[in-house]
C-alpha cells in the first residue's frame, strides 16, 4: 500500500506539470494584461509610463518560454510567487481564503452524506413506494435548482420571514469570522451556504446511492444471504450498503475537491471570501500568478482526493489490493 501511495504521488507530478502548462498558455491567450486593468478600469486617464513600469516590474515583457521556465522552477522550489494585483505573496492570499472554502466544503459534504446515504438507501429499499417518490422528487429538485439561486432565495426568505414576524428584516452577518474566534457567529454565517450547497450535493449523491443499492440488492450474494436466514439489518449494512458505497465514495471525493475552488457564485451570493471568489477575481484581473497558483491548488486537491478515494476502496472492498 505504501509503495502504491508513493507511486501515485510521483505520477501526480506529470499531471501537475501538464496542468501548469495548460493554465499558463490559456491565461496568456486572453487579450490585455493586469497592468492596463489596474491603471484604467475605473475609466479614468491611464498613465502610459506607469503601465509600462508595471509591466517591466512584473516581467510581462519577458519571452514566454522564460516566464514558463521561471514559473515551473519556482514551483519546484516551493516559491509560489506574488500576486500581480495585490503584491501579496500568493500563499498569503490563498491562506486567508482556504479556511472559508474548506469549512463550507466540509460542512456541505457532511450534510450531503447525512442526507444522501440514508435517504438513498431507504429509497432503494422502498422502491416505487410513496417514500421512494418523495425522495426522488427531492433529489431531482436538488439537481435542477442551481445552488446560487437557492442561496439568494433562502436569504430573501430569511429577510421576509423576519420582517413579517418581528417587523425588522434580519439576515446573517456578511463579514466572515473564523469558527475559533466566534463559533456562533461563524455558524450563523456559513449555515445557509453550507445547506444550499449541501442540498444540491446530496441530491446527486442520493440518486447514485439509490441506483447503486438497487443494483446490489439484486445481486446473487444478497439473495444467498437472505436464503441463509441473515437478518435484514446485517444484509443491508454489511453486505449491500458497503458494496453500493464504492461509486458513492468516488462521487463524494470528486464533489469535495470541486467544492474547494468551485463555489464561485455561492461565495459571491453570501459574500464569503473564499477560494472560488478569489479565482474569479484573479481571472478578471488577469493576475496570472495567482490564477496559476489556484489552478495548481485545485489540481493538487483533486489528485490527493482521488488517492484518498482509491485507498478507501480497499477498505470498503477487501477484494481490492494495491501492490
Amino acid at each position, binding site marked *: 500500500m505504501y509503495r502504491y501511495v508513493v507511486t501515485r504521488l510521483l505520477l501526480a507530478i506529470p499531471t501537475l506539470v501538464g496542468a501548469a502548462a495548460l493554465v499558463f498558455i490559456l491565461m496568456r491567450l486572453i487579450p490585455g494584461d493586469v497592468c492596463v486593468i489596474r491603471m484604467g*478600469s475605473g475609466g479614468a486617464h491611464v498613465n502610459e509610463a*506607469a503601465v509600462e513600469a508595471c509591466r517591466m516590474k512584473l516581467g510581462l515583457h519577458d519571452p514566454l518560454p522564460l516566464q514558463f521556465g521561471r514559473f515551473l522552477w519556482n514551483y519546484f522550489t516551493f516559491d509560489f510567487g506574488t500576486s500581480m494585483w*495585490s503584491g501579496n505573496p500568493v500563499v498569503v492570499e490563498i491562506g486567508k481564503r482556504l479556511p472559508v472554502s474548506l469549512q463550507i466544503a466540509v460542512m456541505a459534504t457532511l450534510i450531503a452524506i447525512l442526507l444522501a446515504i440514508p435517504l438513498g438507501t431507504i429509497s432503494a429499499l422502498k422502491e416505487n413506494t410513496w417514500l421512494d417518490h418523495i425522495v426522488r422528487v427531492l433529489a431531482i429538485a436538488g439537481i435542477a435548482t442551481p445552488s446560487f439561486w437557492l442561496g439568494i432565495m433562502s436569504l430573501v426568505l430569511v429577510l421576509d420571514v423576519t420582517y413579517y414576524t418581528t417587523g425588522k428584516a434580519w439576515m446573517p*452577518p*456578511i463579514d466572515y469570522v473564523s469558527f475559533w474566534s466566534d463559533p456562533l457567529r461563524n455558524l450563523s454565517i456559513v449555515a445557509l451556504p453550507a445547506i444550499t450547497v449541501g442540498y444540491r450535493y446530496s441530491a446527486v449523491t442520493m440518486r447514485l446511492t439509490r441506483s447503486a443499492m438497487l443494483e446490489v440488492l439484486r445481486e446473487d450474494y444478497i439473495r444467498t444471504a437472505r436464503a441463509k436466514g441473515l437478518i435484514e439489518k446485517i444484509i443491508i449494512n454489511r453486505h449491500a450498503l458497503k458494496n453500493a458505497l464504492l461509486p458513492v465514495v468516488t462521487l463524494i471525493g470528486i464533489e469535495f475537491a470541486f467544492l474547494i475552488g468551485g463555489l464561485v457564485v455561492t461565495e459571491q451570493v453570501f459574500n464569503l471570501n473564499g477560494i472560488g471568489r478569489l479565482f474569479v477575481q484573479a481571472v478578471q484581473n488577469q493576475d496570472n500568478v495567482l490564477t496559476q497558483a489556484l489552478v495548481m491548488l485545485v489540481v493538487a486537491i483533486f489528485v490527493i482526493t482521488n488517492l484518498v478515494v482509491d485507498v478507501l476502496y480497499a477498505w470498503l472492498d477487501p477484494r481490492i489490493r494495491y501492490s
Partner: protein
Amino acid sequence: MKPKTGLWAAAGLAMMAMLAVAPASAQAPKRGGTLVYMIPADAPPSFDGHRETTFATVHATAPFYSVLIRVPPDNPASTTEFVCDLCVEMPKPTDGGKTYTFKIRTDVKFHDGSKLTAKDVGDSWNRIVFPPAGTTSARVSYYEMVEKIEVPDDETVVFRLKYGTTAFLPALADPFTYIYKKEILDKDPHWYEKNIMGSGPFKFASYDVGQSIKGVRNPDYYHKGQPYLDGFEAIFADKQSVRVEAVRGDRAAMEFRGLPPSARDQLVKEAGSAVVVQDSDWNCGNIVTFNHKRKPFDDVRVRRALQLAVDQWHGAPALSKIANVRTVGGIVFPGSPLAATKAELEQMAGYWPDIEKARAEARRLLKEAGQENLKFELTNRNVDQPYKFVGTWLIGEWKKIGVNVEQKVVPTGPWFQAMRGGTFDVVVDANCQSVVNPVLDTGKFLPKKVYPESYGDYDDPKSVELYEKMTHETDPKLQRAAMRAYEIHTLDTMAHGIVTPYWYRIIVARSYVKGWKISPSHYLNQDLANIWLDK
C-alpha cells in the same frame, strides 16, 4: 363645505410635514456609533492613493488621510468650489495665475503623534507630480501645467505653474492625493502600498484582505469636533444582490458608489422609510468611439449618420428607468458652467430635437457614402450597468436607419486590449473622472498622439489647436466660448464620437445615516468626517 375641509386638511398636513422636516434639518450631529458600509469591489490592489486609480482604494482608505484641498464636504455637488483641508485658506493666484502659495495648518498630527508640516505636503505632491524612478504616480498627466513645487518653510508650499489654467485647482483637489509622512517615504517609497498611516479623521484599526477594513476615531483630528463616528467598518462585496440585501437587513448602512434604479426601487419598496435616497448626475459617461483606421468609419458622413440616428432626448428618460444613466450632455459634465446648454446641444449632430429629420439626414448621408447596408461590430465591456444597457439601446437606434450591428461583449482586459490595439469597429468606451475638471476631462476627445486614451486613432490638428486655446484661457466667458468651439468641432463637424447620456448616481442609505451629501463622483467626499448616526 367639502372642498374647504379638504383644503384645510391639506394645509394642515403640509404644516405638519414642514414641522417634521424643520427640526430634522437643524438637528445637531450626534456622537458615537460605527458606520458599516459596503465597498462594491473585491479589494483594493494596494492602499497607495498615489499609485491606484480604483474607487476601491479611495473608499477603503480616504478616511485615514488628509489632502491639501478638496471639494466642500458640505456642498460636494459644487463643480467650482474648493476648500482647504490641510491649508489655512484658499490662495489667490499671483504671477498672472502661475503661482499658488498655500499656508499649511500648524495643528495637524499624523496618527503616530508626529507633527505634519509643509515638508510632508510638499514631498507628497512632488512624488505625485514628479514621481521618482521606481515609483508610480497614476495622475502625472493631470499636473502637466506644474513647473515646480517649493517648500520655503515648515508652513508654506508653493506651486509654480508653466501657465495659468483653470484646470489646476480642480486637479489639486483630486481625492487620491493623500499626504504621506516624508520621513517614511524617504526610507521606503513603497511603504504606503501595504501600510496605512495618515492624519485623517480615522486611524487604521485592521484590514482583512478581501473582507473588510476598519478604522477608529482620531481624537487629535484638526477639524474640531469631527469626526462624529467612533469608527467605521467597510465590507468588500462585489455582488450587487449582497449589497442590496445587506442594506435591507441593516447589516450595512449604505454603499457609496451607486446602485441601479431597479435596486433603488426594490430597497425603497421593501425597507420603506428605513432608507433614504440621494441621487446626482455622475461625472462618468459612455462614449461611442469609431475606429477611424477602419473603413467606413474614416468617412465623416458615416460617423455623422450614426450620431444622427440616436435619439438622446427620448432615449435618456426611457433608459433612466432601467439603467444608471439620465442626463443628456455634450463633452462637458452637465453641471459645470462650461457645459453646453440644451439649446446649444440641439445645434449639434446627435442632439437635433426633430429625430425624424435627423434620421432622414442620416439615411441620406449613408447613401451618399455608399453605406446603405452598413453592418458592423460594437465592442462592449462585460459590465451590466450601464455599458450593456447603453450598447443594446444604441443598436436599436441604429437599426432604425437600416444599420445592422452585432454587439460583442468582452471582459475588461480584452475590452481594453481591443481599444488600445485598435482591433474594433466601434466601441463603447468610458470616461469616468473624479473632480469635475472640464479642461482635463475633455482631453479624451483629442487625437491619440496627444492623448493616448483617445482610441478613435485619428489625427486632427484643428482639435488640438482649439483645445490648447481653451486650456490656456482663464477668462470664464472666453473659455466657455472656446469650449463650445472645441465641442462643435469634435462632435458636430468631425463626429469623432457619440457622448451617450451621463451616468446617474443613486445612493440608498439607512435613514439613520446623516451628514453625508452626494457628489457628482463616487471618488469624492469619502473621508466620512461629517457623517453621524441618528440612532
